[in-house]
């Protein structure tokens, strides 16, 4: 599903040059649940951004879901992104739309037939246990509910891969556990998951394969 080969990423030039990633090589197979762990600034987010082509590596190869990511033309980027669901630390819900509209909006903009939008949006809400809050606006949701809505939006388009960047970063322990349970359910339905977190304890708790990063390098791959 994911293949990175000697990937490097630098920002700036000359004295201002900053190496965000260096010589990263690993692979994730279809159906795996992998945790990407490391302190803030280790390069986790940059790595995730390379996967959905928000950044281009300075060197090396990146392959995701059969796409040669750095070589993708601008016209083909949407195709890659339709195969990936992305969840961030902040839920990034659209304020003027209800939870249901946040999900249906995404389905509409990627060209889902109108008749399929409502059933798919409700199926996604059911999967994250948020059906009862479909008509609520983001400002009426708790942080945990907002993150579940964000997960529902990510999985509504049935992605092959779910990228979660610190999805529990803003949540208390109880809410974080709820979100991890939801992500686990999504994985068990066959979606490959790559979850980035700075919390080592959370990585231990999940008992999954864990990639550990330090200062832009992959220092451990275990589990």
């Amino acid at each position, binding site marked *: 599903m994911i293949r990175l080969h000697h990937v490097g990423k630098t920002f700036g030039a000359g004295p201002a040059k900053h190496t965000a990633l260096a010589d990263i090589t690993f692979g994730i197979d279809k159906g795996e649940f992998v945790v990407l762990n490391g302190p803030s600034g280790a390069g986790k987010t940059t790595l995730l951004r390379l996967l959905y082509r928000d950044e281009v590596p300075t060197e090396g190869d990146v392959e995701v879901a059969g796409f040669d990511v750095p070589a993708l033309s601008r016209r083909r980027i949407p195709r890659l992104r339709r195969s990936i669901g992305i969840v961030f630390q902040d839920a990034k819900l*659209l304020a003027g739309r209800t939870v249901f509209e946040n999900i249906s909006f995404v389905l509409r*903009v990627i060209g889902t037939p109108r008749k399929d939008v409502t059933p798919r949006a409700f199926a996604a809400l059911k999967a994250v246990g948020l059906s009862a809050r479909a008509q609520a606006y983001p400002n009426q949701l708790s942080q945990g509910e907002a993150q579940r809505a964000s997960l529902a939006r990510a999985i509504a388009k049935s992605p092959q891969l779910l990228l979660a960047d610190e999805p529990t970063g803003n949540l208390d322990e109880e809410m974080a556990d709820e979100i991890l349970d939801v992500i686990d359910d999504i994985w068990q339905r066959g979606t490959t998951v790559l979850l980035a977190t700075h919390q080592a304890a959370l990585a231990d708790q999940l008992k999954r394969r864990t990639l550990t990063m330090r200062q832009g390098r992959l220092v451990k791959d275990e589990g």
Partner: protein
Amino acid sequence: MLGFLAGEAARDLRRAGRVGLSAILLITLSLAALGCFWLLSLNLGRAVEQWRERVRVVAYLREEPRAAGVDDLLARVQALDGVQRVRFVSRAEALSSLKRSLGAQASVVDQLPRNPLPASLEVTPTPEAATPDGTRGLVQRLSAMSEVDEVQGGAEWVESLAQWQRLFELTGLGVGAVLALAAILTVTTATTLVLHARRDEMEIMRLVGATEAVIRLPLLLQGMTQGLLGAALALAALVTAHAVFAPRLEPLLTLTLGLARAVFLSPAQMALLLAGGAMLGAFGGLLAKGRAYS
């Protein structure tokens, strides 16, 4: 999909608020100004056409030819370049025409010892020759004929009317272009404001895999809607102005230009005005800054 995008465009239009409204008003103003000059030019153009058809060159003859010679003379004049029609006016016919034009004073003519009027040829130039240069050429050709004593007539004043028409066209285009530019810039500003308001939405669209066309189409539709609304308002203003002022101006038009009535834009021209407005708005929408994948 198109219905969904149109709905998004309507939402964007509401978000644009006052700037969006200003853009619509500026498009209304520019197209109303353009339409006004278009109407003036259209009616002047009709007057020019009408008067071009009435241009005549009269060749006065030294002597009235005998009946047998008239056909030969008419045939020779008809064969000249730039002649559409020619009519022989005998001395007697000229005199009775004078009497008719004198009306109640016609008896004055009876006091004359003899008919002083010469026979003449009334020449109608072809449409191509009904210009100052064309009629000058025709006058020269007629003057060269031995039977002809003097030639009168020309199209200078028709040409000056045509120049007025061109002036109105150019002024209309100039004023319309300046206002259209302002309208495009306002639509661009309105759309850019919407773009800023839609930052989050666009980011989400970008992340989930919406194509750039889907991201930008609502902006284009928003601009087009503004343009179309502006054009429709301009058209409504023109229709109203025409309905109110045309009946009052028509007597003056008849007297000065010989036009029976002031015409309005044809359905095709009205459609062109609406399409022009839509394109103006769409162009403004397209110019809005920011590309989805930049």
